[in-house]
């Protein structure tokens, strides 16, 4: 049977090309792999090989022809006994890939269009634990360890790996006592090799385990970021839902004290951008514990951003056998009518201090702790802004492409008519973290800056 040979696409972007040279002539016998022609693409001159066996019955496009569209018949291959004269060639190029789904895919989370009035957002305001629950005092460090240990007791596929997590009891003593309880099969010291052990962690998650990968700090996770994003976050999508990486990447994030530029970066905005990841960045010990338990149970890769300065801070933690805090649910620390202050992680320290001082001046701020950045409880922000008509965001990260920038855009789109002042983003300064004590203070966010921003949006 005669086969048409079509002008091939020889690069991802090629639509047409030049048939530079024929290396066969009519009547030649060719077999799979023989070069038939040289074709110039938009990138290079390529040799074009025969795929089928046969005799070159007819050459349809002369060499030297420019602008030959992909899929135009350029020659006809016949079998022995056939005549080239019998061949009817199709004149039009064969259709390329189907294109029957040009309709725009609708996002499931379509917001209101500019013409429709903003609707009151649905917000979950239920308490995280029953009213009247007894509380105990615990540090963030203890709460984190308890959260991990409780989940490890319940599920033996959960294990902890990282640098110094076992015998050293954790570089920041988060995993204190865990080696003794769970043994070296489940609390595993790794060599200093972030890229490698993050990849091994993701592979173990593909294989059905639930790894907790500790980075001594998230600064070092930059060595592993390919596995976090390309291997962990994207695999569920790329596999059509067949497999993913149910795991937690955790460790301290952001500035500690006097450790300089390479040890002081806040990665909240980086990870928050990635579909496929969930991102938690808690402030209080109760949330560290409740969110860690949720993170371990979550079937997706979770980035858990902790803070070294908060590790030793003591908070009230519910004295319950088992409680969790859901992702995507903000916590209102303080109710107020005059302004909304939105923060997360250590930023909450500035937000709460500022709110207290502002109250002395008669400004009642509502303070929202996002707790998780992806999913983000934008409903809680909007609901509050619709009441206060003013918003200030607070974070330690850099200003350009910040979490606050995203929050501002959501408020602009969803509650523009409610705003009485532009949203202000309080952030760390746009500089690498300096070492000198005085300079470091200047680089970091201050409570006074939050107070000033609130006064600006309230026109005081």
């Amino acid at each position, binding site marked *: 049977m005669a086969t048409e040979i*079509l002008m091939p696409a020889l690069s991802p972007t090629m639509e047409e090309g030049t048939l530079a040279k024929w290396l066969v002539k009519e009547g030649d016998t060719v077999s799979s792999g023989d070069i038939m022609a040289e074709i110039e693409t938009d990138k290079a001159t390529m040799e074009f090989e025969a795929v089928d066996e046969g005799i070159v019955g007819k050459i349809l496009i002369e060499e030297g022809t420019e602008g030959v569209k992909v899929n135009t018949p350029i020659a006809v291959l016949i079998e022995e006994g056939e005549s080239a004269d019998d061949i009817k060639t199709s004149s039009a190029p064969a259709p390329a890939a189907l294109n029957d789904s040009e309709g725009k895919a609708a996002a499931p989370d379509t917001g209101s269009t500019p013409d429709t009035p903003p609707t009151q957002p649905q917000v979950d305001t239920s308490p995280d634990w029953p009213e009247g629950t007894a509380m105990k005092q615990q540090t963030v460090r203890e709460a984190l360890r308890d959260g991990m240990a409780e989940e490890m007791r319940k599920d033996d596929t959960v294990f902890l790996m990282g640098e110094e997590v076992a015998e050293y009891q954790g570089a920041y003593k988060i995993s204190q006592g865990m080696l003794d309880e769970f043994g070296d099969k489940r609390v595993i010291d790794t060599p200093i090799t972030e890229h490698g052990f993050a990849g091994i962690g993701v*592979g173990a998650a593909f294989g059905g385990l639930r790894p907790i990968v500790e980075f001594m700090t998230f600064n070092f996770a930059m060595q592993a970021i390919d596995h976090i994003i390309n291997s962990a976050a994207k695999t569920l999508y790329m596999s059509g839902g067949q497999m993913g990486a149910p795991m937690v990447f955790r460790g301290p994030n952001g500035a500690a004290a006097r450790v300089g530029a390479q040890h002081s970066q806040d990665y909240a905005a980086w990870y928050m951008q990635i579909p496929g990841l969930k991102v938690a960045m808690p402030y209080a010990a109760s949330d560290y514990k409740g969110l860690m338990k949720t993170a371990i149970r979550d079937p997706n890769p979770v980035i858990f951003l902790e803070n070294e300065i908060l590790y030793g801070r003591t908070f009230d933690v519910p004295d319950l056998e088992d409680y969790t805090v859901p992702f995507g649910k903000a916590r209102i620390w303080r109710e107020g009518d005059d302004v909304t202050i939105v923060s997360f992680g250590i930023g909450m320290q500035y937000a709460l201090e500022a709110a207290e001082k502002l109250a002395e001046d008669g400004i009642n701020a509502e303070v929202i702790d996002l707790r998780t950045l992806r999913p983000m409880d934008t409903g809680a922000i909007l609901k509050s802004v619709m009441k206060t008509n003013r918003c200030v965001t607070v974070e330690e990260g850099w200003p350009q492409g910040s979490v606050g920038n995203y929050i501002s855009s959501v408020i602009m789109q969803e509650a523009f008519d409610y705003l009485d002042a532009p949203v202000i983003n309080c952030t760390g300064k746009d500089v690498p973290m300096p070492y000198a004590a005085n300079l470091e203070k200047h680089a970091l966010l201050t409570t006074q800056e939050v107070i000033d921003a609130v006064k600006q949006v309230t026109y005081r």
Partner: protein
Amino acid sequence: MAARKAAKKPNVSAEELKTFYRDMLLIRRFEEKAGQLYGMGLIGGFCHLYIGQEAVVVGLEAAAKEGDKRITSYRDHGHMLACGMDPKGVMAELTGREGGYSKGKGGSMHMFSKEKHFYGGHGIVAAQVPLGAGLAFSDMYKGNDNVTFTYFGDGAANQGQVYESYNMAELWMLPVVFVIENNQYAMGTSTKRSTKSPSYWERGAAYGIPGEEVDGMDVLAVKEAGQKAVEHCRAGKGPYILEIKTYRYRGHSMSDPAKYRTREEVQKMRDERDPIEAVRSMLLTGKHASEDDLKAIDKEIKEIVNASAEFAKESPEPAPEELWTDIYADEVPQEETA
């Protein structure tokens, strides 16, 4: 060397030889068809063909047992066919259709099959190496005797994460076979121009990992080496390295003009070392099969490949709603409340 011994006196049944012939031919014909569909614009983006390297995966699959895992780079079509994935589903993924293994969302470089324990299909050079060690870690943790075949090329063999993985694999005695498919070219850079020490497998010695070089154009030699490696892993002795010398006949990807090597070099490999021709002649000279027997296999393969191409053309493009699925395992919308 194992390769020569096997060539002299093949310890293989006629049935097994025929299976090797069939499995390698399926990969070859499938890839030729994929090249054709690419030329027609039905397959887009990057498409890396496995033609010439067929004996590597077919030989190693002969050493695998149920439950063993495999993971590789973006030159992955051969690995998927060799582990029993459906050619229709693979081809339909290449054309980006609903019937593909990843519903059209992964493409040539990103394909997976949980059922066949095929863990991708990874587009970042060498990323699959620690991932493969991690899969092996999961089997060791669970306490079974499965192994993971972790394939990577001579190009990937210069990435740092390979050596991070070697160190931890030997430190923790992970049951992983590191398979270096040395086809002598990392895209357009020959190993001579990229690599100071000529033997990649010898680098394992620095970590205490045994290994060997294998003739990758001889499927029997590959199987024999694979059995040895797998035995080592299953016995709890840790990882093993196989550097399999192979050759790809086609360009790095479909858009490779291949100016870095001569046509004669490629033709010489095809003429003298083709792995499929070698088995074919073994079958015929040993009178294990007649020309007609082989023709019947050729015909069967052609039909399978044509059916896969038909399926890949006819399967619809994924529904527009698929854009928004499989981002999270519990399908939490990206912004629950906005």
